[in-house]
């Protein structure tokens, strides 16, 4: 069981359109996120750094982590929906995150390899990074990142 020190849920699973399909159907569902990797050591007391992930439903997940942990490992150890298709080797763009707190400028800038992969990321923004390349440090305490949607999102534009 990965450690989970705290979690703040700001948004419930309510949607403006209806109940989760899970409640309405007679067919059986699991909401199972399977097979996450990552075995992170908990931080030493007094040395915790805080990082918050906002998932694609807008739900916030806050974790206490230790210096040096990277965002991909943190997300996977905590069952967040983030893939690392290439195993964190900076060879794909599946662990794309968007930095939303004002820490972006305090980060080690993305190197060439990371930028090459960011070029392929869906929904690239000015503050996009690859989760596998961002390591937590004291400067990044309080970091907030957003996870882009992993699937094709159906927007009203699709219906035009």
């Amino acid at each position: 069981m990965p450690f989970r020190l705290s979690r703040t849920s700001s948004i419930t699973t309510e949607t403006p359109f209806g109940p989760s399909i899970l409640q309405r159907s007679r067919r059986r569902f699991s909401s199972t996120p399977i097979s996450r990797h990552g075995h992170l050591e908990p931080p030493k007391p007094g040395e915790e750094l805080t990082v918050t992930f906002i998932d694609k439903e807008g739900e916030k997940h806050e974790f206490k982590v230790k210096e040096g942990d990277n965002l991909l490992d943190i997300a996977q150890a905590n069952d967040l929906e983030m893939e690392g298709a290439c195993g964190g080797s900076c060879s794909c763009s599946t662990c794309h995150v968007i930095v939303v707190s004002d820490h972006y400028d305090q980060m080690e800038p993305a190197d060439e390899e990371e930028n090459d992969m960011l070029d392929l990321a869906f929904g690239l923004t000015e503050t996009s990074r690859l989760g596998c390349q961002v390591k937590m440090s004291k400067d990044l305490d309080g970091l907030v990142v957003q996870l882009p949607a992993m699937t094709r999102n159906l927007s009203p534009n699709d219906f035009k």
Partner: protein
Amino acid sequence: MRLSIQSTPARYSCANLARRLSHARPGRPGALIGALIGGRNGFLSASPLHKHPISTLIPPRLPKTTSRTSLSFQQCHAYTTHPSTTNPNPFRAAIIGSGPAGFYTAYRLLSKLLTAHVDMYEQLPVPYGLARFGVAPDHPEVKNCENKFEEVAEDSRFTYIGNVAVGRDVELKEMKAHYDSIIFAYGASQDRKLGIPGEDLGGVYSAREFVGWYNGLPQLASLAPALDAGEDAIVIGQGNVALDVARILLTPVDALRKTDITEAALETLAKSRVKRVKVVGRRGPLQAAFTVKEVRELMHIPGVSFTPISSSFYPENPKSLPRIQRRIGEVLLKGTPDAPPDTSPKNWSLSFLLSPKSFNPSPDNDKHISSITFAPQRFADDADRYSNAARVVPNTEEQDMTLPASVAFRSIGYKSAALLGLSDIGVLFDSKLGVIPNDAYGRVMSPSLGPGNLSAGHVPGLYCAGWVKRGPTGVIASTMKDAFTTADVVVQDWAEEVPFLGHEEGAKGERRGWDALREKVESRGVRPVGWKEWHVIDKVEKERGAAKGKPREKFGTVEEMLEVLDR
């Protein structure tokens, strides 16, 4: 404890569609929610098979119960939120194809649907599709996705059925009775042709053949490309596959010995006389399909120079370009300052605005190519030449250009083909686009199933994912995203109790999938390969590789693979 529900994005869409439809056609009771058929295949309709009155969209509530389930996935956290279902039957899906699309669809389905069981059919004994037979041998990190696939395959609800080609060894119409759903993820096993004279000459190959050959695809083991015929290679097309071909041709063969490239390929490459590789596009550098990392790699091969490109393709201030084009431009315009063309033993170059017209035979050997003639192109008058969508037209003011080529590779895209028997189960393959017609989310569409003058509708139970759904483009990340979308709509449709397979025959009860088919298929002399057996092949391949200092030495033929199992 985790208590959040994985959402299915498509569901929001349905609600949106419902609103739109009810808005568009006021007064129509029970507006339809459901399959949206995008313009892509020329269909536009709402499927009658996804009928849900808006009133079913009642406000949400949080699930009350959580209980742990045991999946065999390593370190998984499975909670069911729905203990009180009345449908006790598992959801049984057949996925056709074990490439990234098949595996990512299986992963998502098994994660989201507790009762899902997946039978994955693969025509070869060995899994992973283009992750094994496409991805370049010098890009091993890309193959790390196989670790995830391995975890998926370890789930007790997953069955791998290798060495069984759907259409050849088992018919779709016989499968249909034993599954709730069939998901097509069989990729693209052919390639596009140029349709110009001389395409069948010796020394002219498709990139797909060449790639399959050096990666050990059994069907292409005997290709023996004529790399010793001369010094000039031309690759037609400017996508990443074209750059893979160029890089393999130019990389010092000793650097490849540490990869899982086949021994046969190493032998042929060691004898290669190719010194110059020209990668020719019909448009300009700002329209090329390759990505920056692959261009950069070609600039760093020892002893290989790059012929500088004309800066006239770029705006005066290249920094004004969008990020992706700008970064590729920087690499191209910088070139290889450390490897000057006149002193480097090998060279690569990019040629632009040339459309292939004919492959020409050699005067000495009319069965083998010696040059290619190209028709010059220019940007269309109305085209923005800095846009990646810029169109070109023939440039009639310039003469045709003929370039020497002792060997040529056509790298203008792969192509999917219809699976044998598709039409028997109501699917009309779109051979023009090379895709299974679908609603862009993954529901297979038929032009004849819809209501009234809205003609298209979802063929119940049938879905598709990956290259056969989108066409042959996109990296593994795009294929993953696409496969997740497909799995999400499958789960959503199952939840909304729309018809699946067998519904129309009134079939009831549990589908038995492969268990019901196995005996019949084996009686035809087919020898299915299970996941544990793949592990045996995998182990022997790795041992063979280790003996040579390679991660793996692939078996070149299906017979050799099976021999390991049956000896």
